């Protein structure tokens, strides 16, 4: 009886505070934290008279967990390449056909037929980058464009290396070094990979995400790194050089997509079209510090971006490889190698 009163009061509290109903002229964006340029949003708000809210997440998986149940209230999400593939499989994205929108002509042709959204029926490019490594050129003076520096380092780099604490980034780099295919379930090849990684680990100092801190505090002289982090680290340590290994490397792309059941579907489409204008793309790049995949945005981008070797790939570098999510069998095998490596 008494606990009934408590539940009643709680129910009352719920109804009393849950009064607000979504009005017309709103747009709810769920993007990575610190990744949306407020200036760009302001421009969009003025242009269409739409009130925008922005919330941030820290990983693709957090975002997925939250929107998977439906009713999250968000219209726009910005998943990474493989996450678009997963969300399409789970039927979470609305087919808004950006490829028929007026500004689609601005999208760089090489970002149209991508594995995660063939022909771009669901998503458009937001920002893209590469995962490589960056090395102090005063410590190591030789050619930096080889994965040998990670897995068979010269003496001056031994014990001075930080690797990302990321299973896919480490294993894919290892597979490229051994010249074996990605999403690999070949047990003999994986055994070789495992032995190679264990041997290489003896020369690694740490496995950690905090790349910028590790490099600028001179804790290490080489670190596996996303290109944006490498660029920021170079600001404090100008000797750093970003490598584009000849064996190949991983690319990633975050994409603007619309959630199924978005409460403000029309505004979401307007936003998507707006994000394909060179102005909006340049504003985003200037804020987030990555390349954007929209043709014509470069003249409006900050000079320190367009001149950064981390952001603008040299013509001699191989094309970045976008690795699709692997099968469960492969993931399990990788997890075993990864656990073993982290012992």
């Amino acid at each position, binding site marked *: 009886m*008494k*606990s009934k*009163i*408590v539940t009643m*009061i*709680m129910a009352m*509290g*719920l*109804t*009393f*505070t*849950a*009064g*607000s*109903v*979504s009005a017309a002229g709103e747009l*709810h964006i*769920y993007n*990575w*934290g*610190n*990744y949306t340029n*407020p200036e760009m949003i302001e421009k969009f708000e003025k242009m269409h008279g739409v009130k925008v*809210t*922005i*919330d*941030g*997440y*820290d*990983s693709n998986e*957090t975002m997925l*967990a*939250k929107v998977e*149940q*439906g*009713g*999250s*209230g*968000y219209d726009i999400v910005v998943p990474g390449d493989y996450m678009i593939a997963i969300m399409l499989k789970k039927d979470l994205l609305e087919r808004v056909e950006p490829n028929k929108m007026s500004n689609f002509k601005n999208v760089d042709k090489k970002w149209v037929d991508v594995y995660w959204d063939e022909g771009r029926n669901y998503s458009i490019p937001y920002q893209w980058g590469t995962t490589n490594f960056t090395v102090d050129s005063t410590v190591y003076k030789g050619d930096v464009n080889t994965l040998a520096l990670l897995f068979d380092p010269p003496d001056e780099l031994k014990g001075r290396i930080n690797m990302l604490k990321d299973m896919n980034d480490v294993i894919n780099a290892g597979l490229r070094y051994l010249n074996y295919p990605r999403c690999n379930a070949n047990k003999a090849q994986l055994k070789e990979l495992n032995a190679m990684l264990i041997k290489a680990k003896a020369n690694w100092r740490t496995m950690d*995400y905090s790349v*910028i*801190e590790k490099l*600028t*505090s001179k804790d290490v002289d080489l670190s596996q790194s996303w290109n*944006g*982090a490498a660029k*920021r680290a170079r600001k*404090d340590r100008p000797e750093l050089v970003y490598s584009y290994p000849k064996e190949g490397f991983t690319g990633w792309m975050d994409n603007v997509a619309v959630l199924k059941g978005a409460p403000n579907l029309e505004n979401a489409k307007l936003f998507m079209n707006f994000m394909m204008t060179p102005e909006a793309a340049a504003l985003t790049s200037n804020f*987030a510090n990555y390349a954007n995949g929209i043709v014509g945005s470069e003249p409006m981008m900050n000079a320190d971006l367009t001149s950064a070797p981390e952001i603008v790939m040299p013509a001699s570098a191989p094309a970045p490889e976008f690795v699709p999510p692997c099968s469960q069998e492969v993931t399990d095998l990788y997890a075993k190698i990864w656990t073993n490596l982290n012992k």
Partner: protein
Amino acid sequence: MANPAATTTRKPGKSIDLKYQPGFSQIAWFCIVVLYAPIAVLVIFSFNENRSVTVWTQFSLDWYIKAWNNEGIQHAALVSLEVALVAMILSTIMATMAALVTTRTDSYRGLNSAIAVINQPLMVPEIVTAVATLIFFAIIKQLTGVSGIGYLIAAHTAFCIPFAYMPIRARLEDMNLSLEQAAADLYAPPFKVFRRVTLPLMMPGIAAGAMLAFIVSLDDVIITLFVAGPGETTLPLYILGQIRRGVTPEINAVSTVFVGISVILVTLIFLFGKDRKK
């Protein structure tokens, strides 16, 4: 701590004084350093002039000014305060009522399970509550079409109740019934007894409980992460969202202010608790 009278009860002689074992103070200092050194570093680098959180260059308040002018942080701070204030008020009212009915009563079958139900958010792992709440609210939202910050406040209220409940109940259990009985003897009707005797006596407990609830709500990450809807990013969520893209001293500055608020409130709780011992 600052009261020297507390140590005068030491008995001289054979019995070993547990407070003065060899090595205790070293272990205590070690624990204090491990617990507080990282926070000290965080606070120091919030005053760093460059954008690194590990390399010191020069003292500056730039990051505080930047954080103060950052719209995202402003909005998140307001959401945090709004949720924490409403959740504090609601949960303290409920906890006070719950404390009254679980102490001012004869023991009955099920009293202990009633207390266990009230304290349930302390026992269940937070991530379980978070996922359960997420799914539950998603169903309600889809059925009713109602959205808004009410869901977040309801979730916060629910997990704040046990934190508010414990100090209030402790206070009530300490209070002798004789004053209330004397008031009743003098023909005070029950409500007047409550209004004039019980409530003023339990006020320190209520104040401590309310502040504890406020802090717990302000600090919460996991449940908030799952329940918060569009435009409902709280300060801890905002900080969490920054981490993957690299931490700047701006976050140190916000965190320092955050730590400051927590310290002030905890000190107040401590002072309230101390007062009534006299």
